[in-house]
């Protein structure tokens, strides 16, 4: 069994934004059930000991935790490369300075749209765009590398060229353009979020042209959506192969969305070591490798390339987490995706309330 490379630490589900495609579970963890600073420090030590090199500090909004500086310090002390994934609206220059001093390596800042009105409608928070722009400046002034992360969908894809401009103007070295993935809350808003084929082709064209024009100035990572594809996206190098996540309440997950799958029981860091969770737990072993695969994945030449696609999407769309991801043209459920695309076109979002 290979050791994991990266840990996603979901520090909290609390967040001042309300993005309609949030990948957090539909049932959120309360603040009072969150792991403590000391518990996170132990998780980081154990993660480094079993081979993790990187930790992504995420949420929710990780800076909503009052102990975020101590948490970064603990991750750094464990020897992990620390990446903060933030919406940026709670950051100020002083906090950035303290995070940098505590050992933060990299900041990934989300942006919901290019123009403030669009961004604030999607994120559901007034004044957010201005604060994000300031946050980008604080990151730069602290001497930290910045990646801008734009989640794109039907309602903001036309802004993609301007999102590239923003990445440059805000001083990002990288731009990550990711299409929404449809499980959890995003699935409930799928009708409003699914792009058309024409939008998708245009986005791909924009990315290719920008990459060419900005070589050496901006790196653009592009995650394509699979609703329009014939092959599913590869699942993180395989379930339980390189990656683990820990939820705000300490559940150890093979993927950040794994709790959306009914019937899996996850080990918790409050009563299991990370090593035992990785090596011996039923949840991690359930879809590890290729032995669990039914037809048409079983024996398929692509099995070790895409690992049968996404378990969470398979469950969300077919009710069976072991089914071939319907994004695959060989899946008997592949038609579901075309149907969803045909039905999409809603203009209003369903926002969730928290608190």
């Amino acid at each position, binding site marked *: 069994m290979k*050791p994991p*490379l990266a840990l996603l630490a979901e520090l909290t589900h609390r967040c001042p934004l309300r993005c309609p495609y949030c990948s957090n579970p539909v049932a959120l963890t309360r603040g009072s059930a969150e792991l403590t600073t000391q518990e996170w420090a132990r998780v980081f030590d154990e993660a480094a*000991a*079993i*081979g993790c*090199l*990187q930790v992504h500090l995420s949420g929710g909004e990780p800076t909503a935790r009052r102990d975020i500086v101590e948490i970064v310090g603990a991750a750094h002390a464990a*020897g992990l*490369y620390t*990446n903060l994934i933030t919406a940026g609206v709670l950051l100020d220059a002083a906090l950035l300075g303290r995070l940098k001093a505590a050992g933060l*390596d*990299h900041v*990934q800042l989300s942006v919901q749209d290019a123009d403030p009105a669009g961004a604030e409608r999607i994120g559901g928070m007034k004044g957010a765009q201005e604060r994000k722009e300031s946050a980008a400046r604080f990151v730069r002034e602290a*001497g*930290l*590398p910045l*990646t801008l992360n734009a989640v794109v969908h039907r309602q903001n894809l036309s802004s993609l060229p301007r999102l590239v401009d923003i990445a440059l103007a805000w001083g990002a*070295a*990288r731009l*990550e353009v990711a299409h929404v993935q449809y499980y959890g809350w995003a699935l409930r808003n799928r009708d409003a979020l699914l792009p058309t084929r024409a939008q998708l082709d245009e986005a791909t064209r924009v990315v290719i042209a920008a990459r060419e024009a900005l070589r050496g100035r901006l*790196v653009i*990572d592009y995650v394509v959506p699979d609703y329009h594809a014939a092959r599913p996206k590869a699942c993180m190098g395989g379930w339980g192969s390189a990656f683990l996540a820990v939820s705000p309440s300490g559940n150890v997950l093979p993927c950040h969305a794994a709790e959306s799958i009914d019937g899996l029981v996850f080990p918790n860091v409050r009563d299991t070591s990370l090593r035992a969770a990785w090596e011996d737990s039923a949840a991690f072993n359930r879809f590890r490798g290729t032995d669990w695969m039914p037809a048409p994945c079983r024996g398929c030449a692509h099995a070790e390339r895409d690992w049968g696609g996404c378990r969470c999407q398979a469950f969300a769309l077919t009710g069976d987490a072991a089914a071939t991801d319907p994004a695959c043209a060989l899946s008997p459920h592949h038609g579901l995706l075309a149907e969803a695309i045909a039905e999409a076109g809603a203009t209003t979002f369903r926002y969730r309330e928290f608190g």
Partner: protein
Amino acid sequence: MTPRFAPGVRLHHDRARARWIVLAPERMFVPDDTALAILRLVDGVRDVDAIVDDLAQQYAAPRDVIATDVRAMVEDLVARGALTG
């Protein structure tokens, strides 16, 4: 030229896999032996000449041969975003 690690880039000893690895924003790579020998000497103080001197001594090799290799490799590491000059 005095090479240093680009912001957010560092060389890390990966104990679980008994190797050195370069960690960078959104990516990591395993340096080959030449790159590793150079990266271990990058401290923001040594310039390229000092790195060449060091390696020429370490490997008891002719300085001009080492110099050519080091310059090419540093250039490559700069192009890949791992170092800045």
